[in-house]
């Protein structure tokens, strides 16, 4: 049940048609994993914490570097050298002390992925590499947890929401690995995409609106355009094909 302080804190969003006190209670009860505390993970976690998601788990094994600071807005100049999860917990807890922030300073791997996401209601894909994104996608499918994908390059970004067994998953659409490179990015791009991911998580938990399900949203910041592309489940998808149609 929401306290009087919570009713006041979240007053403006409780006013939104479709959220209300019942929706806010759902947000309070929700548990969200944010895989990556960097460019995407910063805005996603900030807005999910501000919205009152009950439990947020940030997973990141990195330490803050100077070159992160143009985009990873959870981390400030004074944080260089700190573990990103520590910097994240500090800021998010100050932003909203009523939200439980958990930190896991581990590299996401085949061995620990299931334990990292078990019992959670949503996974935010805020990684900076494709192999781990594929691991997360598979874990989301295997554990039947919705998966909120986002990715950026320069001034371009993408977002897509995966509901296991019902919509196309990341693997239905993406295969292979492009040559590894240091990717260019400016903070405003992951800011846009991370906020879209957070919006999708909130909508999913509250149960309102139309998700980016079977829809790949492409953001072109250079020309300030959004485009939408229809994706579809691949019957033989190695991650979700075994779930069959319409499960």
């Amino acid at each position, binding site marked *: 049940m929401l306290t009087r302080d919570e009713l006041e804190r979240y007053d403006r969003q409780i006013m939104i048609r479709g959220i209300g006190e019942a929706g806010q209670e759902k947000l309070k009860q929700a548990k969200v994993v944010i895989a990556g505390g960097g460019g995407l993970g910063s805005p996603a976690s900030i807005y999910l914490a501000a919205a009152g998601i009950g439990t947020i788990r940030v997973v990141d094994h990195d330490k803050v570097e100077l070159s992160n600071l143009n985009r990873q807005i959870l981390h400030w100049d004074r944080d260089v050298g700190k573990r990103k999860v520590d910097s994240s917990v500090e800021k998010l807890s100050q932003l909203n002390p009523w939200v439980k922030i958990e930190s896991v300073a581990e590299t996401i791997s085949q061995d620990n992925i299931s334990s990292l996401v078990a019992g959670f209601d949503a996974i935010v894909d805020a*990684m900076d590499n494709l192999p781990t994104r594929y691991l997360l996608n598979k874990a989301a499918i295997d554990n039947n947890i919705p998966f909120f994908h986002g990715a950026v390059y320069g001034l371009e970004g993408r977002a897509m929401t995966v509901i296991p067994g019902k919509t196309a998953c990341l693997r239905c659409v993406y295969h292979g690995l*492009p040559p590894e490179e240091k990717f260019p990015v400016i903070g405003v791009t992951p800011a846009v995409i991370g906020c879209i991911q957070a919006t999708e998580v909130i909508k999913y938990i509250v149960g309102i609106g139309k998700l980016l399900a079977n829809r790949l949203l492409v953001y072109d910041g250079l020309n300030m355009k959004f485009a939408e*592309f229809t994706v579809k489940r691949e019957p033989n998808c190695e991650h979700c094909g075994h779930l069959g149609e319409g499960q």
Partner: protein
Amino acid sequence: MSVKINIPSYLQPYTNDTAVIEVNGSTLDECLNHLVEQCPDIRNKLFDKEGKLHDYVSIYLDGQFIYADELSKPAKDGDEFHLFYILGGG
């Protein structure tokens, strides 16, 4: 017949900084080949040494995702394709 292929910003260095290339072809395969004829530098970015489309390249026809085995589908006048790489950055 004219088909448009939209080139993402990260591949435009290989198309003389052109965002939309007009091509001809009766299938998507042929359209891609015509793209490469006009912009040879993009060949290695789209195809491997055997001429197979890299598996990390995604193609959309009029907003719909196309599987790699659908490249022989007919293309028609006015069709618009988008080419994308998988993005991993975050």
